């Protein structure tokens, strides 16, 4: 049959745009949706921010007295480490968030929409970044309350914050990959922990690396968490903690991780979803 089809229902035309502007709009829509979900469960937000606060108090008042650090002020040494720990934990949400989307059927809907393919992942990592900004601001205030002081200047301090947020954002893509590989959201959460635990604690985040046994020092010094923590200390505290080599090394780590992890996560997404 070759009869001409009359318009059955008036299909609504999309707004003016091109592939790129639509992709950006899709990422914004997805990030907003994720942030709304976080705000709808304030209990979860409360407890995820409570944890770094407790770590701050624990290390400052319980372990701090037994740990000897260069410069002598443990709280100044500690806070950059707490910041890095906090943003890593924040980035871990990418794994459980994606696993949940994947197994709740909503991704089926997304896949049948003309939206950008990678906006689901990018929206997730961006919303976790936004949440991290909020948590870092809060932890800065807590740090001030327990005696932390910026040793450089505010501009350098902000550079330090941006650096650790960049690090967390890059890691988010790795966590996203794990979330897409996990059978469900709960498993995704427990899957990332064994990966993060050694990186976080066998690092300079809480204690000086040279207090560790020699074999561990080799690992601890060269892994990215130490480099990022040292860079943050250099930018936020400076003085004896000045380490510009770590700043460049950590920038390389952040860029390198992003370049490697993002495509891996996107490929996984195309395969599983």
């Amino acid at each position: 049959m070759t009869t001409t089809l009359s318009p059955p229902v008036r299909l609504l035309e999309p707004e003016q745009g091109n592939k790129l502007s639509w992709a950006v709009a899709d990422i914004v829509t997805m990030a907003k949706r994720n942030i709304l979900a976080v705000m709808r469960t304030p209990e979860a937000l409360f407890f995820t921010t409570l944890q770094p606060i407790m770590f701050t108090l624990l290390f400052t008042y319980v372990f701090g007295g037994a740990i000897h650090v260069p410069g002598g002020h443990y709280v100044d040494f500690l806070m950059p480490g707490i910041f890095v720990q906090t943003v890593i934990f924040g980035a871990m949400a990418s794994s459980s968030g994606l696993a949940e989307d994947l197994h709740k059927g909503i991704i089926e809907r997304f896949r049948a929409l003309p939206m950008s393919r990678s906006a689901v992942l990018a929206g997730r990592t961006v919303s976790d970044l936004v949440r991290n900004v909020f948590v870092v601001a809060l932890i800065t205030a807590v740090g001030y309350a327990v005696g932390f002081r910026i040793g450089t200047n505010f501009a350098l301090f902000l550079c330090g914050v941006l650096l650790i947020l960049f690090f967390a954002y890059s890691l988010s893509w790795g966590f996203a990959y794990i979330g897409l590989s996990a059978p469900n959201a709960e498993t995704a959460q427990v899957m990332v922990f064994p990966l993060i635990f050694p990186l976080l604690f066998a690092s300079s985040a809480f204690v000086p690396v040279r207090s560790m046994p020699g074999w561990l020092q080799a690992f601890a010094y060269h892994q990215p968490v130490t480099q990022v923590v040292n860079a943050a200390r250099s930018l936020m505290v400076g003085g004896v903690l000045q380490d510009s080599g770590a700043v460049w090394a950590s920038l390389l780590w952040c860029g390198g991780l992003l370049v490697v992890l993002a495509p891996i996560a996107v490929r996984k997404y195309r395969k599983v979803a």
Partner: protein
Amino acid sequence: MMAYSSQSALAVEAHDLVKVFPRGNVRALDGVSLEVEAGTVLGLLGPNGAGKTTAVRILSTILGPDSGHASVLGHDVVTEANTVRRIIGLAGQYAAVDENLTGRENIHMVARLSHLSRPVAARRANELLEEFGLTNAGDRVLKTYSGGMRRRLDLAAALVANPPVLFLDEPTTGLDPQSRQGLWTSIEDLVREGTTVLLTTQYLEEADRLARDIVVIDHGRVIAQGTPAQLKADLGTSVVSVTLGAFDTVARAAELLAPLSEKAPLVENLIVELTVNDGPKAGADVLRTLDAAEIPIAGLALREPSLDDVFLTLTGHKTTIEEGEHDEEGPVKPKRGFGRGRKSESTDGKDAA
């Protein structure tokens, strides 16, 4: 540039679709072809695991076929997937809506992801919430919604861009009768406005009510197609149903009527049913036989076979297979018991004795 320029009156075409899932080596689709004429409803019918959902997922670009091809309004679902996504709506049995958002936010999100402008998205959210009776619940988070409300919202979200083609994967599975009726009415309204619908269902009643054409698939293959009337006519039988006046006459009536049909009569309370080839003639024979034996009757009816009967004949089993209904030796017993099931035989034996 799209949709309307199509020169074919077919809105959906699928040719020889094959999909094998490597895990378990399941041939979910084994050469399925189907066509949906623009502005009509095609009911894709089949038991659980027949391949209905796989077919819908391929047609809605979620899944790529291993071989074969399909198009929606002339656009290939693989090579022109993004165009297809603009002109289709998809709603399913697992209402794909966001639990953490309100009804309005859900529709707004889908509208924005369909690249509608913010004002249009807001307007559509209002319109659709009202259309589906969700205006009052529109600003409540979905966690407070009932199953029926979620399904309505799911369908509403699928309609956000006014798509000319709609895929509904078991839209009423698990719903209470009232919600089901409501969704049916909504779907009928859409079709009246010109929407083409491909609907999968396990409910024959649903297909009978909504679909102009039916494709029956089982084990990934098309085993029958036609209009509901054609499928029933192809069966070539009708059913004579006699309601007797008194219980003590039932057994004797069944005995007397048995020779009129090749199959044993089905007895249920005061009703004796016969499956026959020539309904009117058999009806007259029934009256003559019972009159001669002076057995009074309370009613006589002649009915077409139901789609249930059609399905049973085609597949050897009912549409919905539930645990415990499996019969190792043979087909599952049909609801109205014309078949060769174990249970109906024992019933016949007892009543005819």
